[in-house]
């Protein structure tokens, strides 16, 4: 025993006499203690694995939830479709059937008639600076235009 400083010889004798008493043995099952200790140790290790797998699961879920939405590649077809959708129906119809100026139609008709007259009667058929009489034009339709063109 250590640190016995300050004790008298009588104290040391008493100390020795008391120390000679044998402690009553415990009735704990040694096998039970060893089994419980081993189980607790294994449980601690399994908790380590359980804890780490839980952390990894949480990280996986967080990464799945917070993953940014993938952006679709820009395809030309979709671009054309979007542009078509942007154009109003009126503008689309106007683009497909370009407007024909009425003055241009009349001039074209005069040209065709004059050309027809020159082909039939020669250069004398050329008018002066005046307009060809009876030139009240019927409305220009596709049928009229085809008729005029076929007659030339």
């Amino acid at each position: 025993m250590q640190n016995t400083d300050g004790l008298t010889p009588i104290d040391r004798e008493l100390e020795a006499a008391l120390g000679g008493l044998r402690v009553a043995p415990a009735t704990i099952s040694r096998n039970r203690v060893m089994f419980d200790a081993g189980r607790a140790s294994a449980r601690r290790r399994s908790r380590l694995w359980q804890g780490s797998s839980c952390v990894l699961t949480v990280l996986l879920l967080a990464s799945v939830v917070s993953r940014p939405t993938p952006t679709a590649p820009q395809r030309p077809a979709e671009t054309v479709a979007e542009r078509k959708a942007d154009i109003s129906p009126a503008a689309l119809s106007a683009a497909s059937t370009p407007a024909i100026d009425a003055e241009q139609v009349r001039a074209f008709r005069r040209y065709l008639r004059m050309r027809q007259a020159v082909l039939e009667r020669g250069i004398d058929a050329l008018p002066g600076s005046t307009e060809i009489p009876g030139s009240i034009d019927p409305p220009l339709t596709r049928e009229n235009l085809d008729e005029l063109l076929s007659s030339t």
Partner: protein
Amino acid sequence: MDAGQLSSWYDAHCDRLVLYARNWLPKESAQDVVQGAFVRLMTQKAAPEDVSAWLFRTVRNAAITRLRRRASRSRRHAGLSAGQLPWFEGRPEDLIDARTAQEVLLTLPAEQREVVLLRIWGQLSLKQIGEIVGRPLTTVHSRYKAALAAIRERMEQSCRTPTD
């Protein structure tokens, strides 16, 4: 830590730890507390630097916790003084009668008795005892000396008193 180490520690400390726990608890509860201390020792990541002191400190904390849960101070004192199973095995070669020693120890204040149990049967130094009970070395030393004086005085009284 492996089973071999635990086994050697068990052989070296089990009985003394139970005796120490009986400073507060009856034998069955004291054994439960000691068993729990060994289980807890096995769950440590590394063996404590001073296994003996660690075991005694763990048993002390667990015993006091259990005592606070179970009973008041007066009931504890009644439980310790009455109906105690023997703390020591009486042998013919003993210089002191085992039962008389137990009776004398039970008359000591709990703080002094704890120091005596740790010092004589726990075989711990006064410095280790101071760390376990959380008191300075001088306090532990004075408690120990006072306890020895009280034991000697009461042993002498019991020797002078005629027995039937």
